[in-house]
């Protein structure tokens, strides 16, 4: 099942995914990650510091985005390197829909030792939320 280096080329697209985010998701992530910054669960506090509403943890968005890569390779141990820039917050309204993080990715470069660089495009409401989002994976 594992993706082989021989099967990919520059431009190969990974299966895109969408990840819903609700206030409940953020509370659960706060507990699991021990990041209890109130901008992620307290709307009053978020507005007081100039945000439009509660925002998702940057690290939550980073965790979601890489699932596109680890689902593709099958084994998270394939990940050699992963980096992002937090460019814009994912605003999570307190309603039925919450927010959605959309992730597309493609192979950007073939590297030595059967490794490839994957570039991710991570958006919410049509706007890029992570910049310079790149992973390097070891393929078989």
């Amino acid at each position: 099942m594992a993706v082989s280096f021989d099967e990919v080329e520059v431009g190969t697209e990974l299966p895109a995914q969408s990840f819903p985010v609700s206030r409940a998701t953020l509370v659960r992530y706060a507990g699991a990650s021990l990041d209890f910054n109130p901008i992620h669960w307290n709307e009053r506090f978020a507005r007081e510091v100039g945000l439009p509403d509660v925002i998702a943890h940057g690290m939550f968005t980073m965790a979601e985005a890489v699932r596109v890569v680890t689902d593709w390779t099958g084994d998270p141990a394939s990940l050699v390197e992963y980096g992002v820039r937090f460019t814009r917050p994912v605003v999570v309204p307190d309603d039925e829909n919450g927010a959605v993080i959309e992730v597309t990715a493609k192979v950007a470069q073939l590297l030595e030792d059967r490794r490839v660089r994957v570039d991710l495009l991570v958006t919410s409401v049509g706007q890029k939320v992570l910049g310079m989002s790149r992973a390097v994976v070891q393929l078989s």
Partner: protein
Amino acid sequence: MALDASFIGRTYPPTEVYEVGREKIREFARAIGDANPVYTDQEAAKALGHPDVLAPPTFSFTLSYTAAAQVVQDPELGLDFSRVVHGDQKFLYSRPLRAGDRVRVLISIDNIKSLAGNDVLTVRGEIVDESGEHVVTSIMTLVARAADEAAGE
């Protein structure tokens, strides 16, 4: 006032041992909604050649960020944490963290610079196992915004 660049290269004492727990991994995997069985099912992990369940790739941030408090709260450095946002995050993996790992974090300051009035601080966290073998490096860039700007992430 800009941060003191002489702190570049400073290292901090290793943290206490953190033992990676199977149930903590499970809780984290559930929180990010990732149903990959390699995070929860020992047999699935073994089928891929791992000795125990793996932690998801960003799990280690909790450790490195907690350890980075040594820098963030260093009174000599004098970072105003109320103005700090997480700018960049990068991980360099030798292998995934997994249940049963007993690890320490070695924190150091990679860089300090001033950009448009903001202080930009790069903190490196090396996570090593009990035998001293490298597991994962976390490189985080923290941006302390100039005092007159709004906060955010």
